[in-house]
């Protein structure tokens, strides 16, 4: 007799560019993640010990750059998340103007290579808003990633059963109150792993801002290379450092995903 019961959301929103996420079925010791991570760490430790020149010399130039890379990444992901909330809601809005604004923004951003966007935004922001290097870099990244984050939020909001909004509306809440108090808190929980993946992608893509101005991790490596002409070793070391970070973070995201699943 008309049993149309909404099933609880069991959605796993993956908007990722393919960081190695360990699969449950793989044995922990020899899965691809463990092999890659071990290899990176071992090389990163052994090479500077065995051949301090050049590897140790390269490595010691990195810490300041690593700090900048994380500053850019963390600031940009926070801003991008805020943009993403509004874009995600906007894409689902029934008001034509807001809906168009959000969807057109996403279309435009997705159609332009990130490097080109960063060049354009960076120079546009610098020229018209007279922003400093750091805020300009962060804002460029945030505007790009805000579009992807908007997609994550849109999918997350759509994954919440319609009955939640209806229950809230039936109690006299406004749409805005229902979104803020009922829908978004549930959305955030299911998209946390997706946000983690965006963070990892952003960490990698932040290397692009080194092209325009900031002395981030990648810029440090390029600086070293341009002075010593030892491109191979400089880029090898910087690759290993990025790899260790992203693999570690992807593990963290997978762990978070497990935890959230258990809680369901």
């Amino acid at each position, binding site marked *: 007799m008309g049993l149309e019961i909404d099933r609880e959301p069991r959605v796993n929103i993956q908007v990722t560019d393919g960081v190695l996420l360990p699969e449950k079925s793989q044995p922990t010791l020899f899965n691809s993640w463990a092999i890659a991570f071990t290899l990176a760490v071992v090389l990163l430790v052994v090479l500077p010990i065995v051949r301090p020149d050049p590897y140790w010399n390269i490595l010691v130039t990195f810490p300041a750059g690593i700090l900048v890379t994380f500053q850019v990444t963390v600031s940009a992901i926070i801003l991008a998340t805020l943009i993403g909330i509004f874009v995600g809601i906007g894409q689902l809005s029934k008001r034509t103007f807001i809906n168009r604004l959000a969807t057109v923004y996403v279309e435009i951003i997705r159609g332009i290579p990130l490097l080109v966007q960063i060049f354009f935004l960076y120079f546009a922001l610098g020229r018209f808003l007279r922003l400093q290097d750091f805020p300009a870099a962060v804002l460029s990244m945030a505007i790009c990633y805000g579009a992807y984050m908007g997609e994550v939020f849109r999918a997350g909001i759509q994954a919440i059963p319609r009955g939640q909004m*209806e229950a809230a509306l039936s*109690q006299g*809440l406004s749409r805005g109150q229902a979104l803020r108090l009922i829908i978004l808190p549930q959305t955030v*929980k299911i998209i946390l792993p997706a946000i983690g993946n965006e963070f990892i992608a952003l960490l990698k893509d932040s290397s692009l801002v080194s092209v325009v101005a900031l002395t981030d991790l990648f810029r440090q490596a390029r600086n070293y290379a341009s002075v010593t002409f030892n491109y191979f070793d400089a880029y090898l070391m910087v690759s290993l450092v990025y790899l260790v970070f992203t693999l570690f973070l992807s593990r963290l995201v997978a762990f978070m995903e497990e935890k959230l699943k258990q809680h369901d």
Partner: protein
Amino acid sequence: MTEPLVRIEQARKSFNKVHALRSVNLSIYPGEVLFIIGPSGSGKSTLLRTINRLEMLDSGSVWFDGIDVMDHKTDIRHIREQIGMVFQAFHLYPHLRVLDNITLAPRVVKKVTAEQARLKAQQLLEKIHLPDKIHAWPEQLSGGQKQRVAIARALAMEPRLLLFDEPTSALDPEMVKEVLDVMLDLAREGMTMAVVSHEMGFAKAAAHRVIFMDEGEIVEEGSPDQIFNRPQNPRTEKFLQHVLH
């Protein structure tokens, strides 16, 4: 004659080509327990959902306490806060504990203080016989407990009308009674209720009036005795045979 609390006139609603409601007229009076039966797809849910404008009508009108519900100038939130709704699938807020499920709307919509809302929630949990679940998460409750909390959540707004859309259809048989008992208590206290359900026992015990819907129309209405024991329309008869046997 008292004024009806809800008056529905010539209500029509279709989804694409499907006629969910075709010219429905219905009044619900204060203190009345109205029981609605009918086959799946006959428009029962749609009818309930037009009363608090979860669905807009294509034509016709709905009046609540003399106010035009479908008028866009009407403050619909003020209407909705006076109408509680209980859903088949409960729709408790899974990220909030039982206490917050019950107190959220009173605090946000009616600006009741947290302390007052908590006291009210405690009273309601006594009433539904779940006082020790105040700090539980919805996922820790059985189906029957969830539905009772959903009723408490609706009651927390001190509604003048309660809408029930198949409140026991998603429950295991052994949990149906605990929910119906709470609903019976409410009926005895004089709560105005519109109940879509197939629990004929509840109807016989509590309903003042039964309506039978089929294909978007009210085919027959009358007292529980009239409808269940002496149906006039062959469609009603056929449906009852189908459900009761």
